């Protein structure tokens, strides 16, 4: 199992905002345990998905030079449950960023309805101490996790290439429809996504 709790970025505005989706499927083991016969996404994993969305937003703002760790969740409210087959949309806004860490406002939506609302505080690990304990490798932003952002960037480039009529560009993955669908997060039509 891979510790990646978002599937795709729909929108990424550096240092400001990110929107990602998480599809829930019965292929995920945890849904069979939580709960047998009633497969709902654990609230803690929704928080993890929001934190991964926010963590990448925070990390990218600093060029991934810092090791960003979830430090505190001062507030988290849940208004419903998400079941197998549902698609969650995570929207995260960076509200504060300083050298020691950052704060984000994070919301999860299901079918345009607010499902979860949280505030998340991230800390930047002290690099010298972290390197002593964990080594120089950035264990927070593994290539697997960053691959989600890389994929979104690649898809955005492919869409741009198609838009510019560069038919000789790489074959465009069939992502246009799903990206447009995601633009209706929070029940509101959105401007076209920008994945910078």
């Amino acid at each position, binding site marked *: 199992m891979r510790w990646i709790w978002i599937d795709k970025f729909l929108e990424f505005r550096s240092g400001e905002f990110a929107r990602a989706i998480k599809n829930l499927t019965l292929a995920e083991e945890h849904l069979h345990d939580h709960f047998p016969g009633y497969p709902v996404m654990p609230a803690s994993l929704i928080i993890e998905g929001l934190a991964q969305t926010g963590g990448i937003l925070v990390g990218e703002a600093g060029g991934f030079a810092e090791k960003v760790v979830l430090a505190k969740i*001062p507030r988290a409210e849940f208004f419903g449950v998400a079941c197998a087959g549902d698609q969650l949309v995570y929207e995260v806004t960076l509200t504060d960023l300083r*050298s020691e860490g950052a704060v984000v406002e994070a919301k999860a939506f299901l079918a345009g309805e607010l499902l979860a609302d949280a505030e998340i505080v991230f*800390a930047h690990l002290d690099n010298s101490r972290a390197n002593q304990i964990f080594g120089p490798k950035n264990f927070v932003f593994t290539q697997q996790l960053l691959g989600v952002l890389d994929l979104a960037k690649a898809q955005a480039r492919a869409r741009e290439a198609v838009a510019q009529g560069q038919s000789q560009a790489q074959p465009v993955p069939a992502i246009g429809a799903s990206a447009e669908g995601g633009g209706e997060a929070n029940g509101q039509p959105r401007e076209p996504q920008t994945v910078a």
Partner: protein
Amino acid sequence: MPTYEQIFEKVQATLVDALGVDEEEVTSNATLQGDLGAESIDFLDIVFRLERNFGIKIPRGELFPENLTADPEWIADGKLTTKGVDELKSRLPFADISKIEEDPSVDKIGDLYTVDMLVQYVQSKLSTS
């Protein structure tokens, strides 16, 4: 310029949000760690909230200094040396250092962070902004 009492009320609300404590617990002389249960990571949250709630800028380490026990000249046998106490005085100008002068144990440093210290700090920031 708001009064001490007005700043105190806002600091009180800030700590209620940051630490999940009751308003009545946040008295002027309450210590952040001992009385209000703050952990080190809460200090970062408190800094964010004070900046937001008061519209001030708090440079890193100015309100909650880092590495207070890093220099071996400041500590001997688990107690602050005279140099260490002087260092505290200069880096925590709004803390009541007399307490630590009575008992210079290193584990008493946390008791210097009080609600009153925060109020005085904010007051000084607002007066210079």
